[in-house]
Structures are given as structure tokens and as C-alpha cells.
């Protein structure tokens, strides 16, 4: 009973203190704070204002995947369209002479602009296993080109080949092997949730479902095979006992899951 009263007293005092601070600040503060990715005091000026300085970006944006969700607004009657949907309202940036990085949002440094639309990705970056975007060690732009083209602009190594983005950091996994795993032809995302996952190594599924969704075969074998899991075409390839011990790739068997130089079954 005494403990309950103490807790209530502490809560009441805390609430009164918070209320006092609130009332005091309402009466005295003249500043404005805004939620990221807004820019305090800035107003929307429209994409046409950006064009004289950022001619190439505005011209090429017609080709970008993000152009699909840009509302055409030549008279600037809708706020936050075009460039300003990601870079924030540009009036102060314009007034500052367009100085590099001044009063403008750079999504390369802060993913908040991307999260405004990609809510699910923000949630995934919040899971235990994630690429360190939240920690500031990576940004969305490391993997995605927000001005990227529907057309392949045919530049550099990123000419539009599968897995090329991931292999920039994960060469050990993406390199060729004597025995390849055909799943690599489907892309890294066939097995990994690349933004974040509840599963180790950002796997889409942590258990045998990950493998069996492709490695499946019916077995209407003779008596004794009922309920058997065949990965192969003879009795020695029955895997029911093995999968009780663990998952295909984590049970110490098919460990070279990205490819092997020594074993066709991707062991070792």
C-alpha cells in the first residue's frame, strides 16, 4: 500500500513538473522546432526554381523511377512535389545563393527523407539484424540511386547486372565458384531481407523453409518412405532424420551456401 502511494506521489510530482515546464516554455519560447526532414522557416518553391542551377538533375529526373510518384505541378499549387519531396522546401537554400549543403536536405546523410514514404523499410531497419543505416554507417544511397533511371544509363560497373550492388561489399559471397548455387541467379533477395530481419544474417526464413521452397520433390515411395523428405533420388538421400537435427545450411552440412570450390553439394 505504501509502495503504491509512493509511486503515485512520484508520478504526480513528475507530472506537475512537466506541466510547469510546458506552461513556462509556452510563455517564453519564440523558437520553432521541426521534425526531420523539415527545414525551419523554409517554404516550397517548386522544381522549376531548382532547374537553372541543377539543370542536369531536373532534366534526367524524367527518367527516374521516383518520377512515377511525382505529381505534375507546373504552377506549384501542391506542396512538396518533385525535388522538394525529398530535399525539403528550398526557399532558404535559394536565398543563400544555392550554397552547397546549405538549408537543403541531403538524403545521403539522413534517411528520414526516404522514410517519409518507405515506412516499412524504416521498420525493417529497426529490427535486430539490419544494415547499419540507423547507426549512420551506411545510407540508402549506398545501394539505391534516388535519381536512378528507368532506363539503364549504362554507366560504370553498375550497368544493371544482378547482385552487382551487394557484391561491392560482399565479394566473398558474390564471387564466382567452381560449383555455383543456382539460387544466386535469382538474386541475393531470394534468401535475404536486405533492409532488416528478425532472423540472423537477415534471412527471409531462418529454417528449412528457406531451402525447401525450391528444393522440393514429391515422394510416393514404397512403405517406409512415407513422411520422408527426399533431396535426391535414392534412399540414401532421405533427409528426414537430418532436418530434425538442424537446418540444411546451419546443421554443418551445406555450409558453402553461396557456392563451393570443392564440393558439388555445397558442403565446405
Amino acid at each position, binding site marked *: 500500500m505504501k509502495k503504491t502511494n509512493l509511486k503515485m506521489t512520484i508520478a504526480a510530482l513528475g507530472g506537475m513538473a512537466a506541466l510547469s515546464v510546458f506552461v513556462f516554455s509556452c510563455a517564453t519560447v519564440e523558437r520553432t522546432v521541426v521534425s526531420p526532414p523539415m527545414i525551419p522557416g523554409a517554404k516550397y518553391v517548386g522544381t522549376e526554381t531548382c532547374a537553372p542551377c541543377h539543370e542536369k538533375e531536373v532534366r534526367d529526373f524524367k527518367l527516374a523511377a521516383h518520377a512515377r510518384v511525382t505529381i505534375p505541378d507546373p504552377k506549384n499549387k501542391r506542396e512538396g512535389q518533385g525535388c522538394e519531396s525529398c530535399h525539403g522546401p528550398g526557399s532558404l537554400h535559394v536565398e543563400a545563393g544555392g550554397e552547397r549543403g546549405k538549408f537543403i536536405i541531403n538524403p545521403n546523410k539522413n534517411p528520414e527523407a526516404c522514410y517519409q514514404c518507405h515506412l516499412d523499410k524504416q521498420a525493417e531497419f529497426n529490427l535486430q539484424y539490419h544494415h547499419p543505416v540507423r547507426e549512420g554507417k551506411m545510407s540508402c544511397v549506398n545501394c539505391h540511386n534516388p535519381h536512378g533511371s528507368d532506363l539503364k544509363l549504362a554507366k560504370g560497373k553498375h550497368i544493371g547486372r544482378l547482385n552487382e550492388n551487394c557484391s561491392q561489399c560482399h565479394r566473398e559471397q558474390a564471387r564466382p565458384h567452381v560449383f555455383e548455387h543456382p539460387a544466386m541467379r535469382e538474386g541475393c533477395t531470394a534468401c535475404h531481407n536486405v533492409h532488416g530481419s528478425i532472423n540472423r544474417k537477415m534471412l527471409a526464413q531462418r529454417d528449412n523453409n528457406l531451402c525447401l521452397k525450391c528444393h522440393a*520433390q514429391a515422394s510416393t515411395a514404397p512403405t517406409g518412405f512415407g513422411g520422408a523428405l527426399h533431396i535426391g533420388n535414392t534412399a540414401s538421400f532421405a533427409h528426414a532424420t537430418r532436418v530434425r537435427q538442424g537446418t540444411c545450411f546451419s546443421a554443418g552440412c551445406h555450409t558453402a551456401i553461396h557456392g563451393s570450390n570443392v564440393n558439388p553439394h555445397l558442403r565446405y
Partner: protein
Amino acid sequence: MKTVTSVILSVAVACGAWTGRAMAAEAEVKKEPGPEVSITPVTTFVNVEGNTSKFREDQWMKQGWTGGIESFKLNQQFGKDGQFNVEGRGIYNQREYDIRMEVVKPDFGFVRAGFSQYPKYFDNIGGYYAPFSRATGPGGVPSSANTSFMLLDAPEMEIGKIFFEAGLTLPNLPKFTIGYEHQFKDGTKDLLEWGSVTGTIPAGSGFPTGDVTKKIFPAFKDIDEKVDIFKFAVEHDIGPINLGDEFYYERYSNRAFRTDDSGYFIADGTQKIVNVKEEFSHDLFSNAFHMDHHVTDKVYWSAGHLFTEMNGDSDFNIVTIPSPVGLGAGAVDDRFWTIPNINLKQDSQVGNFNVMVGPFADLTAYIGFQGEGTTTDGASFGNYRTTGTALDNRKTISSLTRKSTEETAGLRYVKIPYTTLFAEGKWIQQTYGQDVNQLAFDIPANSQAWGIDTDVTKHDYTAGFATSPWSRVNVTGQYRRYRTDNSFNTRFNTSTDYSSFIRNQEFDTDEISAKLTYRFSSRLSATLKYQLASTEINTTTGNVPGAPPPSSFVRSADYYANIYSASTTWAPLDRFYTTGMICFQDTKTTAFDNGVNSIIEYQGNVYSVIGTAGYAIDNKTDLAADYTFSQTDNFIDNGSGARPGTDYGLPLLVSNELHGLTARLTRRITENVAVALRYGFYKYNEANTGGVNNYTAHLASVSCTIRF
């Protein structure tokens, strides 16, 4: 580290010298503003109760004291538009550094350089099986009952890079860029390759009795990976035509050593270890040429070509080390392989051509074509000895050719006021030809060869819209259908190996997404979003003499995901804002299991909440807070419980709850000095590892930002 520091200092001196000369020249014309400099020293203390390695892995920070420079910025403008910038941070005993500097003068050139490094942490446990709980783990690590097996040291790895880039950007002349980059990964990481643990389970525990083996013993891998990259690029505009060429050379090397458990017996502590050493290096050259031309405002085309050549060498050794107590050598799964000569070569040519036209003011249409040819050749020679001293020398030759063509076509239509309609189709045709020939000289029965051709067709259609019927409302919607059809033709196969009887595999995916944003006022807006994804995978198998399976059609897997998310931003006062985001992901994968009871449907239901708030307490003091939460509750104890006494398998799926709360109070002491206090609270519970990964952590931090 000394080398790194020397490089950074050299670059800094070079940048400074160039900037100095440039600034001196410009200063004759105009007096420059002084540099803007700010520095934020910080010290942080983190207290963790519970599994510290799991905390480090989740939160990317270590426990105990850390300190250093949270942020350093220097910005000096010179001339009309030149800039010298330095940005960095360095947390000393977290081994986290990031420094970047650049000198940019738009009509002359630029120099950029930097060094970054950060640690990646891993937890130290393997799998979990409740009956194998013990008082102590391997190496005498104390552990509570009901624990998992643990590594003595939690793995960690340093990831980083050093880069230098310089360019000449004189007007009306070709632009040149030259760059060097050194990337590295050095340390130890955990693996999902868990070794076997065998124990005897007494009657009455609710679990299967007798000797049971589960693959739950953790493993780790030492990595020493280095990449050196040299780049040279030139780009030039000839009238409306843009031309460019980029040469790229990469030297990659990786020395990896991993230790796997091959059998741990709880009763007597005997253990068999497998050591695997693998070295790999490659040289990769590539050259990419591109050109594009804005013929008019309504016509644009681009074309490009990429050539890549890679030559790699590898060395592989695997040795099984029996326990001195028992087990002995010569067990069927022992390996003593030495394969010193592994060669890989890959050549690739890619070309593409694309056209965009805008025949009408409100309609944009584009088409693209890409062709690719890649050949990969592998060869190895080595001894695959398993038991005793008998040699088993084998020579392996493999080749894989890939030919791919891809066509793209799309439309964007913006005639309807405040509305964009779009549609796109992609069609991909691929052929793969794979040949493998392994010749066993000492034990001919181990020889094998196979050849498989694969035809792949992919169709990818997307259509959608974005509209703003009222100034306060934005609506977007999109539908995507994606289909892949793989047809396999096994030309020959001397063994009974997987997967010669698979004839066909189809992937059918449908995706829908819709988003509504409503701005109630300038102070309140809300977004609702819904996504649906559904995939069916179907497999057709053929007859293979001698054994099952028969020719049949199998629904290999069904996958679906519903993702509901909503966010709101509310700023009721000038000095107060709050944002909130809630997301629920409901995913399920049902793979073919043929009635095997250790395989159950995968469920990945996840709830996420993220909230932030900012409040100006007075004209000099700000309070900011954020809260993150995620929860998943899908754990099934597949080894007991609902089905006691049956050895169905390991516990499956995940149940956990993660809370993170941080509050930051910032007080501006003077015009140029601000002090910030930060408090963080983190709490994590995980049911699927019996609580061994649980932790509670408190963080306290003080920082001071000084502007000069």
C-alpha cells in the same frame, strides 16, 4: 594504422596546400570569410545486464566507457565558389573513425579523401535445445541453466576503407577523375554452421529419451579481406552528346580460417573439431563506355558497353581433429582434404541501348535493350582423403556460360491534372549451360560428370498511378506481376546426384501497394500504406531410374506477406513536434515438406513502433526523445510441448521483444557552446533461446559542441 595516419596526413597537407594557394590567389580579389569550425567531444557509459554480446550486435555499440569526438566540422569557403570541407568523428575505444575531406572548386577540380572504420559485433551463441542445458559451457564458461552453447569470445570484425579521388573539371574540356580505394574486413564473425551436440535425455523430461543429436554448437570464422581498387574515368560533352569511359581494376584477397564443431558429446566432453582454411585472391579488370544524347527535349537515347575479366586463385584445406579422449580418426565424416590448385576465370560482356521519346507533351515512352554474355571456368586439383592414408586425388573442371537478353518498355502519362499514370514491362530471356567433370584418379568410383542446360524466361509488369485530387491529399497505387520460368535439361549425369530429375520450376509473384497521405493542416499530416506480396513456387520433376521420386508436379512453396503501416507528424505548437510510425508485417512461407514433422510453416509476424518528439523548453534548451519497439511472437518449441516425447526437431521461429528509448537534453550555454546530455534505455527479451540472449542496458552520455 601508422600507414593510414600517414596517408590521411599527406592528403590533408596536399589539400591544405592547394586550398591555401587557391585562397591566396583569390584573396587578392576579395577578402574571404573565416572558416566555420565546430567540434563535439563526447563521453559515454553503457551498462549492460544480461548478454552483452547480443547487446553489442543489436545496438552496434560496446558496453563500458567510450569517448572521443562525436563530430568535427570545418568549412572554409574560398574564392567565388570554392570550398574546403573536413568532417569527421572518432570514438577511440569503440575503434570507430570517420574522417572525410574535400576541396572543391566547381570550374577547376576537386580532391576528396577519407578514412572510415567501424566494428561489427556478433553474438556468441549457437542454437538452443532446452534438454542440453548445462552448468558450464565449453572452455569453462559459466552459464545459467537452460542456456545455449557459447563461444568463449564474442566475435567482432573491423570494416573500413581509405579512399582518395581527384578530378579535373575545367569548363568545355574533358573531365578526368582518378581514384584509389582500399577496403578491408579484419576480425572474426559468427557463422550459422552449427556443429552437432549429442546428449542423453532421461525419461520424464517431456523430450525424446535416449541419445539425441542436435546441431547447435556455435562456430566462427577469421577473416582477413583486403581490396585495392584503382579507377580512372573520363567524361566529355560534345555538343548535346555526353561520352564517358571508366576503367576499373580491383585486387582482392581473403584469408579465411574457420573452426567448426563436428561432434561434441555432453557425457564425457569429447569433441571433434574441423578446421577449414581457405585463401582466395583475384584480379578484376573492367571497362565501361557509355554515351547518351538529348537530341531534343522529346528525344533521348543512351548506349553503353561493359567488359569485365576476372582471374582468381584459391587454396583450400580441411582437417578433422579428433578428440584425444575418444572418437578416433577414420570416422565416415572425417575430412583431410588438401586442394591447393583452384583456378577461376570469368569474362563478361554487357551492352545496352535505350531510347526515350515524348511524342506528346504529356506522354513519355521508353524502350531499352540489354544483352549479356558471361563465361565462368573453374578448375581444381587436390587430394580428398577421408579415412586412413589412402589418397583420393581428383581433378575437377567446370564451366558455366550465361547468355541473357532483356527488353524494357514503359509509359508515363501526365495529362490528367495532378495525376501521373505509369506502366512498365520487362522481358528477360536467359540460357545457362553448365558442365562439370570430376575425375578421381585413385578411387574411380568417386568420378562424376554432368551437364545441365537451363532456359529461363522472366516477365515483369508494373502499372500504377500517383494523384493529388485535392491539395491536401496524395494517393499512390501500384500493381506488379513477376514471373520466372526455369526449364532444366540434363544432358548427361553419371551419378544419381541431385538435381538431375528436376525438369521445371516456376515462380509467380503478385505485389500490390497503396499509399494515402493526408495533410490535415500545416501542423498535422498522416500517411497510411498497405502492401501485399504473394509468391507461388511450382516444381515439376521427372523419372529417374532406380528410386523415387516419380514424375510429378509439386507446389514447392507459398509465400505471402501483408504489410500495414501508418505514420503521423504533428506539430501542435511551434516549439513542439511529435512523429509516430506503426507497422505490422504478417508473413508466412509454407514450403513442401512431404509430411515430415520437423518442418513447420514459417511465420514472421512483426510489430514495429517508432516515435519521436522534440520540444523547445526555453530559448536555449531543447528536449528530444525517441522510442523504438519491435515484437515478434512466433516461437514454437518443436521438440516437446504440444507433442511430447517425439523427436520432431529443434525449436523453430522467433519470439522476442526489443525496446529502445533515448532522451536528449541540449542546452546552449553561450552563442558558440552547447552541452547535451543523453540517456538511453534498451531492453531485449528472446524466448526462442531460453532467455540466454536477454539484456537490459542503460546509456548515459555527455557531449559539448563548440563552434569557433
